[in-house]
């Protein structure tokens, strides 16, 4: 029976897994591109840090189903479900990356930053040679949290028709078929675990000895 189920749904599960991955990867790309530079900028203008972090925090507390609902009627976004999904997932991924980038740079030993200045490193050299390498493990930990969150929330994207593994879950719930629910939930959980492990590995490699 199980083999029959897999024969029937196997290719669909594969397609939806790839779709799921794609949504998550696109969102992580945008979130990283926004949140890492923003986190760096906050360390240069620390008085803006509390309000900006508060906004990112609020974004994160919006229930995901409501977030997808809010975005649905928007002009350009509402036309394609994948756009809605990517924007919503990006919003959820911002906070962990932003907060960890900011904290990672702020937590660097002040003596090290002082010396970097006093030796005559330019702002760019200080950032790329000292601050980012030292903050890298924490930034990566933020990316890891954000990725796992995104993989989970991406299942809800099916509610607005964006596809992904959530589609199997919603269909399973509607037809009271637990096999379908599991066919969506198990690959989603495995994706989250795999992403967590992979990024954890990179994070450990980046950790500087001290």
């Amino acid at each position, binding site marked *: 029976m199980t083999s029959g189920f897999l024969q029937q749904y196997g290719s669909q599960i594969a397609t939806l897994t790839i779709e799921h991955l794609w949504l998550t990867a696109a969102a992580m790309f945008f979130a990283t591109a926004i949140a890492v530079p923003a986190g760096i900028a906050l360390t240069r203008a620390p008085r803006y840090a509390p309000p900006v972090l508060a906004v990112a925090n609020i974004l994160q507390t919006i229930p995901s189903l409501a977030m997808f609902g809010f975005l649905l009627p928007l002009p350009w976004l509402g036309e394609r479900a994948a756009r809605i999904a990517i924007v919503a997932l990006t919003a959820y991924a911002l906070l962990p990356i932003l907060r960890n980038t900011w904290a990672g740079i702020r937590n660097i030993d002040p003596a090290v930053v002082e010396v970097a*200045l*006093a*030796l005559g490193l*330019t702002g760019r050299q200080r950032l790329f040679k000292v601050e980012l390498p030292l903050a890298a493990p924490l930034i990566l930990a933020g990316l890891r949290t954000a990725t796992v969150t995104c993989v989970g929330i991406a299942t809800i994207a099916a509610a607005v028709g964006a596809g992904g593994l959530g589609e199997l879950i919603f269909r399973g719930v509607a037809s009271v078929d637990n096999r379908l629910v599991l066919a969506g939930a198990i690959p989603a959980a495995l994706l989250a675990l795999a992403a967590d492990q992979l990024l954890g590995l990179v994070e450990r490699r980046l950790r500087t*000895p001290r």
Partner: protein
Amino acid sequence: MPAAVEFRDLSVRSPDGRLILDGISLSIEAGATTAILGRSGSGKTTLLRTVNRMAEASAGQVLVHGRNVQTMDTVALRRGIGYVIQEAGLFPHFTVERNVAIVPEIEGRPRAERLARSRDLLAAVDLDPAVYAMRYPHQLSGGQRQRVGLARALAADPDLLLMDEPFGALDPITRAEMQDMLRGLLARFRETVLLVTHDLDEALYLADRIVLLSAGRLVVSLSPREFLASTYAEVESYIRAFHRGERAAGTRPSAQEAGAP
């Protein structure tokens, strides 16, 4: 000969408006070691930091080799001045070798030149490059870290070296070793050194000139010999505060001496 550093009626205020330095006028002789002595909060570190513009003057001027630092590009100014602080401030993610050669690195010197320079300087501070070059700062003792910090400050071949209580966190024996090594290095490199310390013994041992600050004001600028003979109340109280244990022990005969016939 123009002074290596000249402070002209220099005042510095903290961001909250407190006066940290109050009208300091002082010339620092080139090629000499000048110790800046004073209690905690006397402004000695701030005075040092105005030279490489880590602290900014609120009034008056600081001249380095006759040029007003305020008109100079901070990056260029700082690269030409060695800087050593108490905690060494080594980059934890760089090897010892890369830490030493960081200034040549940011100036874009070729790699082979940087490595050769780094190894020369490690040898100069008595750290065997074969043993220490590839280590990370956390694998070194406090004294070794400070040696690396000193080598790094010398890497750009600066003619001015700023040292802020460089040996303050070390045990007395390590500190004495470091002071001996520094004396040897200075004899060889002929740097102008500004050394902030609150250790009178260190100032007397290393400096050609001793400057005493008190509450942001310049009290005296004297040679070590003149300093010890000075009758200024603030100098005398500073001298009295040192070697008290020695004097106290010296007034009491030890048990062995007392028991001897």
